Structures are given as structure tokens and as C-alpha cells.
């Protein structure tokens, strides 16, 4: 039997109003232990008010090798930005 504890990714909300942010990872036997360990490893100085733990193997990540096809199409869509539209100077606050 493989007795190595699986890896978990830890996300912490540092205060209400902010999103959960990836803080790092750790090993734990199950999700409860992952939460408890995350408390001790990543929030010893009030760094958080909420923790998410996700099993690392459950995350599907994009491959940087595909960054071209994934992200480059956005580069030539200048019309998605406000500066693409020329307005007369008299129009304020738009």
C-alpha cells in the first residue's frame, strides 16, 4: 500500500472582500487534516479568515506550451479596450 500522504493545494482568503489566493501546498491524509495543517502552516499570523483545500491531482492546468493558441488571440482584439474608440475632447467622463 502506498502510504504517502497526498498533496493538497491551499487557497486562503486574507480578509473578507478579497478572493481566495493560492498560498502553496502541503501533504495530508485527508481533507480535514489538510485544513488543519493549512491553518498551522499558512496562517500562523492572522494571514487568513477562510481556507480552501483542493487535492492537487484534482486540478486541471493549462500547459504553457499551448500559451500561444490559448492567449495570443486576445492580443489583436484591440477593440475590446476603451482606448480603441476615439471621442471628441468635449466628451468628459466616459
Amino acid at each position, binding site marked *: 500500500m502506498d502510504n*504517502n500522504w497526498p498533496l493538497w493545494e491551499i487557497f486562503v482568503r486574507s480578509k473578507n472582500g478579497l478572493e481566495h489566493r493560492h498560498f502553496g501546498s502541503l501533504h495530508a491524509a485527508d481533507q480535514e*487534516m489538510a485544513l488543519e495543517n493549512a491553518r498551522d*502552516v499558512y496562517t500562523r499570523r492572522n494571514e487568513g479568515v477562510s481556507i480552501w483545500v483542493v487535492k492537487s491531482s484534482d486540478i486541471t492546468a493549462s500547459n504553457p506550451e499551448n500559451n500561444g493558441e490559448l492567449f495570443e488571440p486576445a492580443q489583436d482584439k484591440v477593440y475590446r479596450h476603451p482606448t480603441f474608440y476615439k471621442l471628441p475632447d468635449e466628451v468628459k467622463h466616459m
Partner: protein
Amino acid sequence: MSNEQIKNLEEIFEARIARDEKIEAKDWMPEKYRKTHIRQISQHAHSEIVGMLPEGNWISRAPSLRRKAALLAKVQDEAGHGLYLYSACETLGISREELYQQLHSGKAKYSSIFNYPTLTWADMGAVGWLVDGAAIINQVPLCNTSFGPYARAMVRVCKEESFHQRQGFEIMLKLCNGSKEQKDMAQDALNRWWWPSLMMLGPTDAESVHTEQSMKWKLKRKSNDDLRQQFIDQTVPQADLLGLTIPDPDLKFNKQTGSYDFGAIDWDEFWQVVKGHGPCNKQRISARVAAWDNGAWVRDAAMAHASKKQAIKVKIAI
């Protein structure tokens, strides 16, 4: 991939680092970059973990509840530092198990300083003040290193280190303002920790093998000798403030350079310790291995419990 293609990728890679771009774990990287980072980050993680042992030794004998709480919190931080660094290292495709094996078998190195004994309570002061002080000097530049997971771990580590050094200095200050015996104890600790702390910053530049490549990859921003000089220049005035004498008869302020000149370091001692013949090398590794082995049944039980719970969940779902 052909050699030409790899060379091309390497050039693009080096240019990214030169532009101060960060490298993330899934990005393409030269094998040498991966290996060098696994070695350096794991050595760093091992140092944090083994570094708990000389201080853990004094937790139960701290002279007051205040000191005990501080020391306990510091040692817990070091465990945290080890964990941040191990997980940064694992993103490079090495397992935690393998990393531990390398430490336990003696294949991997850790900082030479932790192979010295902590004989008196004053050593808790000297270790915080000098060893964490030298560690900070080593670590701050790494917050900008090129490998993203390492840089992020270092930012977190550096935020926590300053308390370590301050609580150590406070211990020294208290002893130096106490009885003669207490002040002597502080001086004795400084005498024993001074030279190993200077050695901890690594061999002289002339003997340091990895420096040039490490500079390029921002694994190193300043040379060992520069870091050592920085440490000496910042620490000598602090020793003066404590009324303690640095155990180096050749130490002298040099008006021309604005730095302290210092005596010869016993590099034979350093290499002896690195090669495993320091005062506590065997003790440290065997304490670490025993802790790991004696905890095996707990880890196994936790896994058995987790899979049992999972099985029940699956059954209910069906």
C-alpha cells in the same frame, strides 16, 4: 528534440530571466536549471528542518514562560519554512519521499551551522542573533530569484525571520545586563558561534564552484564574501552595544573601505563539518531519522483512516 532546438530554447529561456521574467514550474527549463534548483531548494528546506533540533533542545528548559512561548513559535516557524520550501521543490517533479530519503541517507547537505551543539541558554540568544541574522542576509536577495515558487516561499520566510533575530538579540541583551555569570555566558556563546556563523555564508569566492551560473539565474545576487562582509559590518556594532567582544584579535575598522577587516577563517574546520565530521552531524541525522521512523505508524494509521472514510462515502453514494 534536436540539439539545435534545445539550444534555441535555452537562449529564449536565459533571455527571459535576464528580462526579470519569472519561471514557473510547468515552463520549459534546461535540465541543469531544474537539477540545480532541486539541489539548492532542498538543501535549504533540509536546513530549516534540521535547524529545529539545536533549538528544540531548549524549549522545555526556557527560563520563563515568555521565552518559552517565543522559542516554541520560532521553532514552529522553522518547520513552516521547511514545508514552504519542500513544496516549492516538489513543483520541480521530485517527491517529498525522495527528498527525505536524500536527507536521511546523508546524500543531501544542510547548513553546516546546525552541526554545532547548543550548550547553554545563551546559545538560544546567539543562534537567533547570529545564525538567523546570517540567514536573513542570505535569504533577502532570494525573494527576487528567477524561479517563481522559490521566490514566493522566500518572501514568506523573510517576513517571519525578523522576529527570530530580534528575540535572540533580546535574550543576549538581557544576559548582558544581568549578573557577571550571565554576561560571561553570553560572551561564551558569542565565542563559540561567531566563526561558524561566518562560515555559514559559504566558502570564499575563489573556492565557490557554482557562483557564475547561480548569478545568472538569480539564485545568488551577491558573492559569499560580499555577504560575509555585510554580516560582519552589521553585527560588530551590535556586539559593541551588548558590551561583548568579538573573538577575533584581527578585527579592525578600516577607514578607507568603511568596513571591518577580519582574521583568517579556519576553512579546514568548515570542510570537516560539511563532510560529516562536525561535533553533532551524527546526532542531528539520527534524531531526524528516529523522528521520521517513530512517526511511521501514525502516518499509516491516518492513511488507513482516510481510505476507510472514503470507502464509506462511496458506499453511501451507491
